[in-house]
């Protein structure tokens, strides 16, 4: 029974139209809303996906924000919901809530150079940024993507790298922690922060977006500050345990901030004084 209250816990339905294997534990799901409407979102926002019978989980929306017919989530298998999603096939129906959260400040950054730093799965929320930049290339100066992963196999969206390299004034720098035998690798080996040596930032005119594992973000943030980047221009996308996505369940609080509604994107100035930011 509906009492005329809008119920934010009720998911809408989306149909899976394509499943892509990114690597052995990561898949990308292309979905379209069953009601035919577009899922309008801005780069950096996330949605909450239901696998009925198992539960809900938050995932960054990782597709081109201007693509109206479909949207995408990339999922790494780590637990219950993500395991269930791994068994999903095209044609299956999932529940979707959202989009939620504050996006990357792309308007504010207009006119600036962009440095995008991603680790592993952290490339997912940055992919819409790249698509956006490609469409609105004139809005930004140079764009550098620094991407690190554990091994070459852990990288996602590798099939798009070529087209990203073709975006004018955009460069990709790749690195891995180690290269297994028999794997060909012509890029760097080492932590992602080392890739910063390739960029020559104009501090005042550069905005940095960072997303990746906590440790990686911690070291990256420290290094960026030491290099002289403005705390207000360094943005991180944080991950927390999250149940509701709408600032009720409490789980995602960091100090007085809710990751779900005040974030997940924060700049270093905002979170500088908060406890429990980094484990």
């Amino acid at each position, binding site marked *: 029974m509906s009492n005329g209250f809008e119920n934010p816990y009720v998911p809408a339905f989306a149909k899976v139209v394509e499943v892509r294997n990114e690597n052995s534990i990561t898949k990308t799901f292309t979905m379209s809303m069953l009601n035919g409407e577009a899922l309008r979102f801005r780069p950096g926002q996330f949605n909450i996906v239901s696998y009925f*019978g*198992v539960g809900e989980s938050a995932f960054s929306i990782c597709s081109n924000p201007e693509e109206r017919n479909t949207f995408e989530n990339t999922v790494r298998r780590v*637990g*219950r*919901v993500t*395991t*269930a999603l791994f*068994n999903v096939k095209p044609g299956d129906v999932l529940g979707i809530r959202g989009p939620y959260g504050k996006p990357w400040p792309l308007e504010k950054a207009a006119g600036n150079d962009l440095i995008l730093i991603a680790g592993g799965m952290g490339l997912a929320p940055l992919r819409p940024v790249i698509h956006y930049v490609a469409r609105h290339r004139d809005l930004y100066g140079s764009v550098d993507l620094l991407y690190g992963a554990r091994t070459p196999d852990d990288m996602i969206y590798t099939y798009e790298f070529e087209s990203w390299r073709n975006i004018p004034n955009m460069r990709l720098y790749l690195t891995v922690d180690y290269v297994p035998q028999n794997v060909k690798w012509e890029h760097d080996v080492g932590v992602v922060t080392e890739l910063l040596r390739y960029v020559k930032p104009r501090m005042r005119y550069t905005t940095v977006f960072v997303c990746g594992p906590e440790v990686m973000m911690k070291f990256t943030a420290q290094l960026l500050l030491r290099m002289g980047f403005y705390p207000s221009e360094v943005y991180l996308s944080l991950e927390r345990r999250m149940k509701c996505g709408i600032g009720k369940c409490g789980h995602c609080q960091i100090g007085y901030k809710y990751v779900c509604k005040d974030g997940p994107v924060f700049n270093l100035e905002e979170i500088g004084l908060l406890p429990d930011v980094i484990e």
Partner: protein
Amino acid sequence: MVDKLKVGVFKLTSCSGCQMVLVHLEESLLEVLKHIDLKYFRMVSDDDLPNEPLDAALVEGAVTNEEEAAMLKKIRRLSRFLVATGACAATGGVNAMKNITPEGEVESIVYSSPEYVRSGKAFGLNEYVKVDAYLYGCPIDRNELVNTLMSLVLRVPPYIPGLTVCMECKMKGNECVFLTRREPCLGPVTVGGCGALCPSNNVACEGCRGVLKGTNVNGLVSAWEKAGVSPELIRIKLRKYTVYPVAGR
């Protein structure tokens, strides 16, 4: 439609109470069986030990001798997912109380010719094999059993919420047996899910569901000491269904 989940129910040293909880699902059992193919359940069926691989094994009971250890290892090899079912399987349960008595002595208390009877110390399954999930309690909880089985049917790992018995006790609005009657209650450090059954019936929690990760047993013991609970009672409380890692006890 995915294939039915192939499940075996096995028993080591135990009272069969956890298997009984499965039988006590009664009509719900018939619903569960729509999704599950019970390949082995000796208590109610003539089937022989399966040779084909199982999707999941529910293993009840503690390991108390080599035969059981060997049996358990065989079950492990056979099963994709192994659930330690009940306090005995999780921690050794009540069987482990004898572990503090020197070997041989317990046997001779019970049997006139103990040489015919073999038994070592009692341990939970994880002393011998990898355990994929736990069902806590002596006996296990019916709803958790259903949820676990249905999770396995969906091919996802089961989930038991990590809250304490004490929290469930509060949710029910019970009067605290520790604060009102000074009875040492293990609710504050025990994995919830039983609905705080014992405190709700005016009985202090005996900790049959084991210690919840992240709780502080030492803190609780100090609280008991401050409340005047005797050291002897504390010692007994800490060795029942679970042997608690408390320094100096």
